[in-house]
């Protein structure tokens, strides 16, 4: 049986670091990230080429899945901008600040 951690990241927190900090606090180094919805002030994703930036004021996280491996988050998904345009790829570390909230679940695999 694996245990589940329910998370909410508040405005201003960093997407990757926020997940990693809460996981550390609860002694989780490895797990599955099951993203619920959320919003970012702007989003940066990468899919083979240079990072693509989705503008704010709120770039909505439409889907997100990922993993925590040795305490480091790796997140993939899709984002929608204020015009409804969709961007897809791997969330770029340090470039996805939370706008209002991000809701997710982390399933521990330790």
């Amino acid at each position, binding site marked *: 049986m694996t245990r589940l*951690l329910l998370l909410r990241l508040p405005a201003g927190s960093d997407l990757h670091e926020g997940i990693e900090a809460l996981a550390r606090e609860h002694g989780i180094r490895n797990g599955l990230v099951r*993203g619920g919805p959320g919003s970012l002030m702007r989003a940066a994703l990468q899919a083979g080429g240079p990072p693509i930036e989705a503008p704010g004021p*709120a770039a909505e996280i*439409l889907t997100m899945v990922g993993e925590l491996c040795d305490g480091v988050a790796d997140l993939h998904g899709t984002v929608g901008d204020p015009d409804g345009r969709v961007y897809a790829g791997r969330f770029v570390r340090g470039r996805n600040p939370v706008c*209002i*909230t991000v809701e997710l679940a982390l399933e521990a695999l330790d």
Partner: protein
Amino acid sequence: MTAVVAGPARHARVLLEGGQTLMEAVTGAMAGLGWRSATLLILGGPMARAVFHTSVLTPGGPRWIDYGPPREVAAPAWLVMGSATFGEALDGGPALHCHAVLSGPEGVVGGHLAPTTCVLGPEGLVAHATSAAGARFRVVREAASGFDLLTPA
């Protein structure tokens, strides 16, 4: 930041019943499982009605940012994939926060779905739900943003 450790993870594959609003379909599926809260991954399928919002700045308003006017995807609309949090509203009733990628004749778009306006196609949608006993998402009114937000409790 908020985190609540729940009990052992539990998973379920559910059918969100066709012809219902997104809110009715998710609430019904969760009631069938006896779950009060879950994180959901919604798989793709047809929508009878797909309405979504994106964000707009609202200077001078009660909150600095808000949902813009509803936008409807013309038929035939398709939900490509979605994510959702189901939990408990301030009044104790169900609350649903859902974002999704949608597709229609004008291309692929995405945003915040209007849960009581979106209607599933007749065959419904499959969703994978994750939850655990001992913790749930519950709406809390956040003074800083002015939003009612689903928060682990």
